């Protein structure tokens, strides 16, 4: 087996073009000890993949979780100042400021009277949008016809206990309403009746006084949006819903901090794995080192050789690992958030530099330790 390997080696050596000795040594080292080189590369790839996945997740998790937090509904509210109404183009202005990164829903309110003289709050809104904005609303059936209404459970107990149609009057004008479904939220919505904006305006002539906005941006983007809207709508008060914003910021911050701690631990473990594998690999080749030294190679040449080898290993490992890691992050995103984590290419240089640095450390460290040992000792097998 040995001799066959040797003749194989001679043939291949004759066949290869005469590249520089340095490059050839690098190539041969990888080819001749395929098994160990492969296991070193594997360790490198896995470490780079894990690091990439963790960094990618860390960068992307905020965007992913923010989407979940938008289920809490609006984080900004625009209210007409007392005694004023929102300008007719307010909703358009809000929507252009949002530029598709969120949802804006108008609400109009009046206090109407039932046929037996009870006061009840009636709201006109865009029901399709509300359904998206306030996903926690528990509704038996959403209205889809004209004059169909969504009646809060407590309001329903007063105005139409059996679910029969009823009349409401506002400033001498009466509307006949058909309760399509009941609404349960546990908050003030339970005492209200919701109509489509069109029915509401035809009946009362009252314009929306409130716009609820769910902006999906970061807290800086939300604050910038509030600034922009306050300037665009001087007749209205634009304010953040602190309850939602602060809760979100707190939970997001804690999650990110935990993830960062996890990332540091995992990346350190992966680096350790590479370190121990590579040190073993280089240590194992102390005979190569001794032969090179015995043949008169200078210490810097040997150091350069092992360093170049390590750098090549680090680069290949980092690139392959990056691809694998992006895949892992995308998979985690799909499993957990039902949306893949977007690859962040600004993570690549970090992973690349980190991998090469770890590889260099683990190549140079054994050389440094072996520096003072006489080549003869190593060649004798001691």
């Amino acid at each position, binding site marked *: 087996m040995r001799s066959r390997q040797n003749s194989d080696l001679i043939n291949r050596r004759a066949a290869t073009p005469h590249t520089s000795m340095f490059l050839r040594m690098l190539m041969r080292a990888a080819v001749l000890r395929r098994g160990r080189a492969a296991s070193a590369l594997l360790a490198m790839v896995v470490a780079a993949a894990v690091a990439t996945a963790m960094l990618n997740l860390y960068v992307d998790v905020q965007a992913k979780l923010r989407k979940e937090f938008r289920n809490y509904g609006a984080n900004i509210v625009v209210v007409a100042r007392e005694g004023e109404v929102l300008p007719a183009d307010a909703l358009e202005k809000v929507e252009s400021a949002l530029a598709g990164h969120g949802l804006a829903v108008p609400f109009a309110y009046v206090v109407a009277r039932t046929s037996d003289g009870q006061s009840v709050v009636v709201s006109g809104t865009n029901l399709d949008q509300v359904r998206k904005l306030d996903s926690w609303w528990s509704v038996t059936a959403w209205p889809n016809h004209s004059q169909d209404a969504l009646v809060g459970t407590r309001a329903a107990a007063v105005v139409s206990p059996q679910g029969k149609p009823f009349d409401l009057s506002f400033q001498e004008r009466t509307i006949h309403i058909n309760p399509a479904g009941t609404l349960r939220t546990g908050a003030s919505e339970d005492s209200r009746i919701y109509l489509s904006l069109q029915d509401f305006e035809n009946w009362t002539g009252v314009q929306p006084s409130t716009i609820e906005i769910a902006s999906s941006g970061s807290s800086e983007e939300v604050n910038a949006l509030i600034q922009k809207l306050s300037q665009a709508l001087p007749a209205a008060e634009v304010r953040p819903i602190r*309850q939602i914003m602060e809760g979100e910021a707190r939970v997001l911050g804690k999650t990110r901090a935990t993830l960062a701690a996890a990332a540091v631990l995992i990346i350190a473990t992966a680096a350790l794995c590479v370190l121990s594998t590579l040190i073993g690999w280089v240590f194992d080749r102390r005979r190569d080192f001794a032969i090179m030294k015995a043949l008169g190679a200078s210490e810097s040449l040997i150091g350069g050789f092992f360093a170049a080898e390590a750098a090549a290993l680090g680069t290949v490992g980092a690139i392959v690992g990056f691809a694998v890691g992006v895949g892992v992050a995308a998979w985690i995103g799909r499993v957990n958030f039902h949306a893949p984590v977007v690859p962040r290419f600004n993570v690549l240089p970090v992973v690349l530099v980190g991998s090469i640095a770890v590889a260099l450390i683990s190549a140079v460290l054994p050389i440094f330790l072996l520096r003072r040992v006489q080549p003869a000792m190593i060649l004798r097998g001691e």
Partner: protein
Amino acid sequence: MFGRLVYESFRRQKRRKLLAGVAITLGVGVATAMIAVATDIGDKISRELRTYGANLIVTPQEDTLDVQIGGVDLKPPSDGAYLNEADLPKIRGTFWHHNIVGFAPMLPVSVRVSGDADAKNLTLLGTYFSKRLTFGKEDFATGVRITHPWWKVQGAWPDDNSSDVLLGESLAARLGRKTGDEIEISGQAHRVAGILSTGGAEDAQIVAPLALAQQILGKPGAVRRLYVSALTKPEDALSRRDPKSMNPEMFDRWYCSPYVASIAYQLQEAIPYSRAEQIRQIAQNEGTVLSRIKGLMLLVTLAALFASALAVSAAMATAIFERRGEVGLMKALGAGNVSVAALFFAEALLLALIGGVVGFAGGALLARQIGRSIFDSQITIEPVLFPVILAIAVIVTFAGSAMAIRRAVKFDPVYALRGEA
């Protein structure tokens, strides 16, 4: 002989053993810390989610309709039914009282402030700030400072037993009052303890101790609404069922699970003539956010376990690979494959146990540190984790060594002794 081989191996090869041992210790430490954090993260995050405020509301059963737009009551707040303040401490006697983080009663009354140019009725909201209550032998504090953590006060929070008040931000600006000023409410002078900013309707209201609101209303002990903040379990198939349709056994299981619906049911039992309901905006969303974060940490923990298993395997493989010469010598002296493998496995076992114990202790410390620095509270380590971690450490070390041991055992002693690899 076998024992001596193992002993000598550890005595003579301190450096190698130390390297492998350090790798195992670090791997186990990271795994322990991550598992501890991942198992506790649900609890920690659900506490953080309480910053969203109350998830349950208790109202009188015979309540009239709220006529409220944008948080402003349009109905004279004096009519309607009330809860009794004396019943509130009974919440501490419910089955899930440990899960109830806090509660805050609310009583809006309409008042006039002298010197107000607009001279219209203002809402004064009576509540607990951080009121000390006793139930049985238990002494506890509760109020809006717990249930409404986003309320910010410039100045100081008033004492619950004083008659000092907080002024909402926009109201204070309109009236031109600041902290320390006097304000005359319904003919009585009160000190402004601080300026309140909530981002909600309270910004245009006066917030005062509950007793003051009751005194103005002339109804001692009256409470209009009660906000309760409770730690709950996310909804599942059981919690969505109607408790009335359950058989007794299922009902017991439902009653003894901290679902938001079962806590509401128990609140209703504790407070007479009340109706408790979940605030769906808060209660419903908690579950999804929680499960996403838990899922994320679970997957990350898997990644951590994978990385540490790999690190341990790599260290073990390297350690064994370096000892081919020894294997050759043993085999040349007549040792069988089994006894060589047994020696290596025994060494691996010893390393795994030592590394496992030290790593577990280190990991537990690490988890505590993470808990303290991120969540300001301890992360509890289940003692049951110890044998599990130790077993994992042994299995991973064995698995990592197995390949290398097999290769080492198969190696021809002649080459090994000649020093060729």
